[in-house]
């Protein structure tokens, strides 16, 4: 898979405040990448810096093999985006917005259909609800078949059905080769669509990894039920396992060198009858929040 975007040592100051601090990451073509972080972490600033919207920044942004310079956006003809708020002219209808930016009628109709905008597309945007404006902003980002789409909090104001439409649209376009960078506070929604995740805090990249690796890394918690939980827990703790009794069950966290395949016969050999066992799958949201808390603790330390 080829690289579409490379951000290297990107730094940006507003006055004396360092908002981006040597941010580096690489994005592969066709991937859906989640840009995650708390408010003020620098997500929107990264997105705007990538697009060369600041008169100056330090570091390097390379899009499709070409270096991005401030005041030179010629490299971005194949980029669509929604940053901060939908860029909408209130005096134009939704359809007129499409006509303003595209002359491809088939492409326009496809986007309108995908986002179910038909029933209000001829109304002036000033009469749109928050969700309708958001959908129009997303639609304008994906019109003209861009190679890279940057979406900043696209789920804002969307109802559950629209959220689902958006997820389907992103996954469908990604399959066709479009690359997405998506930021969102709704981590549970984001986790459903992203391939990779970049965790930002205080203007720094805390983590940049594939979501599958993230799941794998947090794949070691099990719950056991036995005929004798107290004795089973004692045996496990005495033999180097991290275990505790919680709500009448034994919670076991395996280390990297410990496996569930060894644990089960080990208990049985000690005469413990196991009545139930299941794997605790921690959701991505919890994993990311945990990692973010850890990074904050490190900064404070």
């Amino acid at each position: 898979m080829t690289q579409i975007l490379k951000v290297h040592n990107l730094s940006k100051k507003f006055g004396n405040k360092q908002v981006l601090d040597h941010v580096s990451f690489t994005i592969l073509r066709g991937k859906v990448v989640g840009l995650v972080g708390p408010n003020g972490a620098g997500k929107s600033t990264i997105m705007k810096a990538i697009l060369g919207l600041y008169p100056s920044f330090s570091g390097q942004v390379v899009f499709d093999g070409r270096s991005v310079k401030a005041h030179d956006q010629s490299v971005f003809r194949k980029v669509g985006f929604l940053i901060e708020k939908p860029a909408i002219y209130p005096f134009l209808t939704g359809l007129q917005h499409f006509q303003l930016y595209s002359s491809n009628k088939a492409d326009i109709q496809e986007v309108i259909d995908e986002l179910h905008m038909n029933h209000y597309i001829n109304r002036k945007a000033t009469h749109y609800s928050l969700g309708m404006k958001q959908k129009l902003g997303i639609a304008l980002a994906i019109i003209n078949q861009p190679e890279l789409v940057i979406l900043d909090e696209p789920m804002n104001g969307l109802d559950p059905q629209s959220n689902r439409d958006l997820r389907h649209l992103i996954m469908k376009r990604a399959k066709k080769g479009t690359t997405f960078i998506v930021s969102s506070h709704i981590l549970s929604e984001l986790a459903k669509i992203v391939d990779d995740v970049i965790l930002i805090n205080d203007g720094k990249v805390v983590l940049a990894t594939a979501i599958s690796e993230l799941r794998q890394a947090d794949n070691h918690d099990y719950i056991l039920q036995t005929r004798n939980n107290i004795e089973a827990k004692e045996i496990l703790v005495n033999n180097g396992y991290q275990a505790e009794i919680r709500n009448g069950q034994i919670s076991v966290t395996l280390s990297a060198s410990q496996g569930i395949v060894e644990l089960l016969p080990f208990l049985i050999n000690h005469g413990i009858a196991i009545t139930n066992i299941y794997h605790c799958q921690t959701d991505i949201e919890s994993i990311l929040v945990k990692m973010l808390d850890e990074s904050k603790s490190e900064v404070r330390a």
Partner: protein
Amino acid sequence: MADILRQEFYKVWHKRSTVYTPLVIFVLMGIVGAMTIHSSDARFYISAGFAGFQWAMIMLIVIAANTISSEFEYGTIKHLIVQGNGRTLVFLAKFLVIGAYDIYLHGLVFGLTLILKPLIYGRRFAFNQNYLYGQSLMTNLVTETLVDLLGSLIIIGMIVMLACVSKTSAVAIATGIVVCFVGQGVSELLLKAAGSLSVILKWNPFNMLFLSNEWSNPSYDHNTLLSLPSLIWGNVIYALVFLVLGYEMFKHKPI
């Protein structure tokens, strides 16, 4: 460039103000015409486009300021810049659209004058009738249209600069209208109070607003202390200075 110009004209075309502007100017010019129906100086009002150029200037100030400020207010400036245009092209396109709108408004006032004159005065004051400087009424009207168009450049430059520096269009609009109506008075007061400094102060930008007056009445040079060619160059140079300053501000305006 062609693409962004098409987009800019598309937006102007779809603004409600574009539809209502000719109607509003027509009504206002009609009112001025009706008020001067028995005036002994009717030919002056005809050659002045029934004060339509003043109304057109107010409209132009509002439209020019909104054309730039609204892009920042709506957040649409990001799209304009990133679509491969860059800030320089966006600024140039904005200026060209405002310039084109200026020409359109002056053409509109000229055209409406041709319609209103027979409606208000009937067959009196024929356009081929002699008026000032041995020229026909029509020649006077054409000259007034062109001189006012030239004089409007300095206002456009100023509005573009103010729109680039302020966060909303309101500041640019308010300042532009005040300058339009009070600017000449301010310049007169300055020159009266200046004494020996008038050699320098006669080049103040407000003094350039007398271009149209001095063209119609050359004795105005006693007030402006500048010849007609000096006023013309002053207008052009100030307009360019304002535009260059506006461009620099536009280039660095936060998005």
